[in-house]
């Protein structure tokens, strides 16, 4: 445990000092403040922030995560020659990467939002926690990619494609599917397909929590019923956790067996 703490700590130290993350944080603060200042309509603010938090943040998460891991390869090697467990190092690396992102999200988006008093704290909490879960998911996918793909440029390409798939291509398939099978009772399948994708799930989860929910019509009402039920809450949370857990643990086992 102590070793895990040390590894996490030094990583956080390293990442927090990076210009990248400082610029990104200030960028977020600035964008969020501008959005609040210029729109001043709570639902529009949420919608604009959703794009940042559910699209941009994951992209930064997966790319920054991958780049960081590729850059740290030699250092990881060196640390591994010390008498510590590989699993401890892996978990430490993950925590060390994820925690700065959580801080960045809270500082960059949460603070300006809380200061503006425009959106109820409950919803801010929801927005932040969903965004944090998404970042964790994409960082954990970055871990999966970097443990399997040695070549840096290929790895980054794949990271980008995975991001693009989850936030864009997947929705295209969903739309195509719903057109193609319109005449069938596909309500539940669509529901399932939407829930499987963490970005879609995050988006709908937030949409359903403010007044725009009604615009999703009857289809949205089905979601509302599902998501607001206690089982639904558990399932939506579980889906996000699974998305973190599966790439993380596949990467974990690979990392343990890997040759450096």
């Amino acid at each position: 445990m102590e070793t895990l703490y040390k590894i996490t700590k030094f990583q956080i130290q390293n990442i927090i000092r990076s210009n990248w993350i400082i610029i990104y944080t200030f960028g977020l603060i600035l964008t969020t403040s501008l959005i609040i200042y210029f729109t001043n309509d709570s639902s529009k603010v949420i919608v604009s922030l959703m794009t940042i938090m559910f699209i941009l943040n994951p992209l930064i998460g997966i790319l920054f995560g991958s780049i960081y891991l590729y850059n740290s390869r030699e250092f990881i090697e060196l640390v591994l020659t010390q008498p510590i467990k590989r699993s401890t190092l892996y978990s430490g690396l993950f925590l060390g990467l994820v925690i700065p992102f959580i801080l960045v999200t809270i500082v960059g988006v949460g603070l300006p939002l809380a200061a503006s008093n425009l959106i109820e704290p409950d919803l801010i909490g929801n927005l932040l926690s969903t965004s944090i879960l998404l970042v964790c998911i994409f960082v954990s996918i970055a871990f999966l990619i970097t443990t399997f793909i040695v070549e840096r440029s290929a790895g980054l390409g794949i990271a980008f494609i995975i991001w693009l798939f989850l936030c864009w291509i997947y929705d295209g398939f969903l739309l195509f599917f719903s057109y193609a099978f319109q005449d069938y009772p596909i309500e539940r399948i669509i529901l399932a397909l939407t829930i499987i994708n963490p970005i879609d799930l995050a988006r709908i989860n937030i949409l359903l929590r403010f007044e725009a929910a009604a615009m999703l019509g009857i289809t949205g009402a089905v979601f509302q019923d599902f998501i607001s039920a206690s089982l639904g809450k558990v399932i939506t949370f579980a889906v996000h956790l699974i998305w973190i857990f599966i790439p993380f643990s596949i990467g974990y086992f690979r990392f343990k067996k890997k040759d450096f």
Partner: protein
Amino acid sequence: MVTIKDLYKSYGKLEVLKGINLSFERGKITAIVGPNGSGKTTLMKCILGLVHFNKGKILIDSNDVSSNFNYRELIGYMPQIGRYPENLKAIEIIKLIIELSNNRKPVNLDYLIDLFNFQPHLNKFVKNLSGGTIQKLSAILAFLFDSKLYILDEPTAGLDPIATVDIKNLITKKREEGATFAVVSHQLTEVESFADNLVFILEGKIVIDSPIKDFITTTGKQNLEEAVIDFLKVQN
């Protein structure tokens, strides 16, 4: 000190180590030499536990490498290329390694800082250090503790002549204190100047394993470089 028995390692279809049998004598410096891609680094990484070998056994002072990771306490390792987290200070990295190494005492720290004139660099961020300084940092990290075994991968590459001499002196000093060394190198002339034994690896097999002096004598050449070239010609 180190005993390697019948070691095999392949990456997919590519066989890198094909039955290595080797031992590093206690208190001796063994130079591991061979062309690029011959398997030197892989062999090192097998000893360090970075690479999982397919078959064979490595014992370090009767510790089996594949059963427990604590044997790494015994080893000081200097990688060929040192790359460190950019936004940490040199001193922070040194502290981290000390913390991660089961709290062994960094008995040599002051001596090393003195030796490499590292004091002015301690509080600089890694991203502001030159390549040579980073190599010195790697050396400091490798020699921090009184280890029984030192594994050095091209220790002098990228160092200025003065630092190169310093490192050689350091190696000699540690050897006199009873440490065992495995040094990977390209430069035969350099190896000749401080190593006791020569291990020459070619395509995953050991072709030479003998004390340097004996090897030169048997080939009847002037120096190690000529001897090795001569030996390889005969082999072909």
